[in-house]
């Protein structure tokens, strides 16, 4: 099930030489069907950790940090 907002598209402008570089890469290398797809993919990758609900530390990681801070005398 795809939410309507997720299929709606908007246009953004990027530098011509960057666009050309990306286009050349895709034509030679494949991997992506268009510059648009490449840009969307990279943005999603970079933003995925930012928008996740559990941004922060897992219980296990938090314990590790607590242990270290205790040994350092902060807590």
């Amino acid at each position, binding site marked *: 099930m795809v939410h309507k907002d997720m299929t709606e598209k908007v246009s953004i402008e990027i530098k011509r030489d960057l666009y050309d570089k990306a286009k050349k890469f895709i034509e030679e290398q494949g991997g992506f069907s268009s510059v648009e797809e490449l840009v969307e993919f990279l943005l999603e*990758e*970079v*933003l995925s*950790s*930012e928008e996740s609900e559990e*941004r*922060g*530390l897992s219980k296990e*990681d*938090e314990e*590790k*940090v*607590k242990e*270290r*801070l*205790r*040994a*350092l*005398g*902060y*807590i």
Partner: protein
Amino acid sequence: MLGLDSLPPSVLYEDMDGGGFTYIRRLIEEGQKWLMRTCHPPITVPAWMVMFTGKTPGELGIYGFRHRRPGEFDYYIVNSSFIKTPTLWDDAGKKGLKVGVYGVPPTYPPRLVHGFMVTDFTTPGPDKPYTFPPWLRRELESRTGPTVFDIVYRSHDKDRVARDLFHMLENHLRQVEYLATRKQWDLFVYVEISVDRAHHAFWKYFDKNHPRYEYHPMYSSVIPKVYKRIDEWFEKLHRRLPKDTIIVVASDHGVKPMKGAFTINQWLIEQGYLKLKEDTTTLKPGTDLRRDLIDWEHTIAWAWGGYYSRVFINLKGREKQGAVDPKYYEETLRQLKRDLERIRGPNGERWDNKAYTPQELYPEVRGDAPDLMVYLDDLWWRPAGTIGWQTNYLPENDRGPDDAVHDWLGVLAVYDLEDTLPKGFMGEIRAEKVKEFIEQLIYQ
């Protein structure tokens, strides 16, 4: 911006650097020198973020590394996701500047920045995604080796501590040099934690005014060597930077000798504020105060130790087994404050204690604030939260070796070759004004 965690003014502005900071001191002699008055509490977290967001700890809702949700006994640790205010580098990025951020606590988990970021000593480990962009991690490790986030203080193996310390410092210097010379940036913020670690582990071998000062052929040279290594590295790097680069050297707070540790929870027990279920004399020295040890029905308050103490009132309606009626809350606070401020030293000498409610200290109090924030003898004595000790006055820390406590004044010095700034000693600047100050330097 070179951030040297816990560097006091006496080291950078006076002669107390053991000859370490030759180059940097010469630079700032031609520049501007400020005393950086740190925040309440004077601790790494939140101090750096106060400097980089321009917000007080109250507005940030960050009162130290650990916090307690109302009604809970256990604590949680803050991380970068707790910082809800844009930082110096967030705003610089928005203005189109490319930024580099290295080692600023707390920046783990790393966030999206207009440039690159390597997180700090609160990173759980080198196996975690600790860089932005994520692929920077592999690049950095392949060029400079695995990232070292912190050292462990081993109480009786100072040789090992010194070795680990220099190993970490070299690792950071190599990484920052790589980033600073290979990447594009307009603003680079680097905080080096090794300085603080060296101070805490070796201060009594360095500061002749330490009450337990001791000369040691090796340990006494550790702190000056750390300074010297940073100084030489920086000189080399500085020569490779564009001539018009503005240099800022800053610290988040100062440091001074620790006179001892005071067992704050034992004192609360003696004063009748805290009641335990069992006889305290049967407890092993250094026992952590646990929820199950406390007779909650008869407990008014309990405390946390650290570089400062946080006191919590066992308030009815807020705590699971609250005993203090909300209508007596203010009165209880007043009484506790009075009693805390009257605590005296081991020989009956007067102490300069301060107990504040967060509301007294900040324009706004967000997040999980304690009921009282307590400093013993103007920070000279460290509050220890553990119990089971024979005395309330411990000559050493209750947790591992610690020769130093924090102090209110850090440094902020600026060198600008273009020479548009007034020179010399400028007075005090408050931590929450540092962001604005640096922005004026950048956008002047």
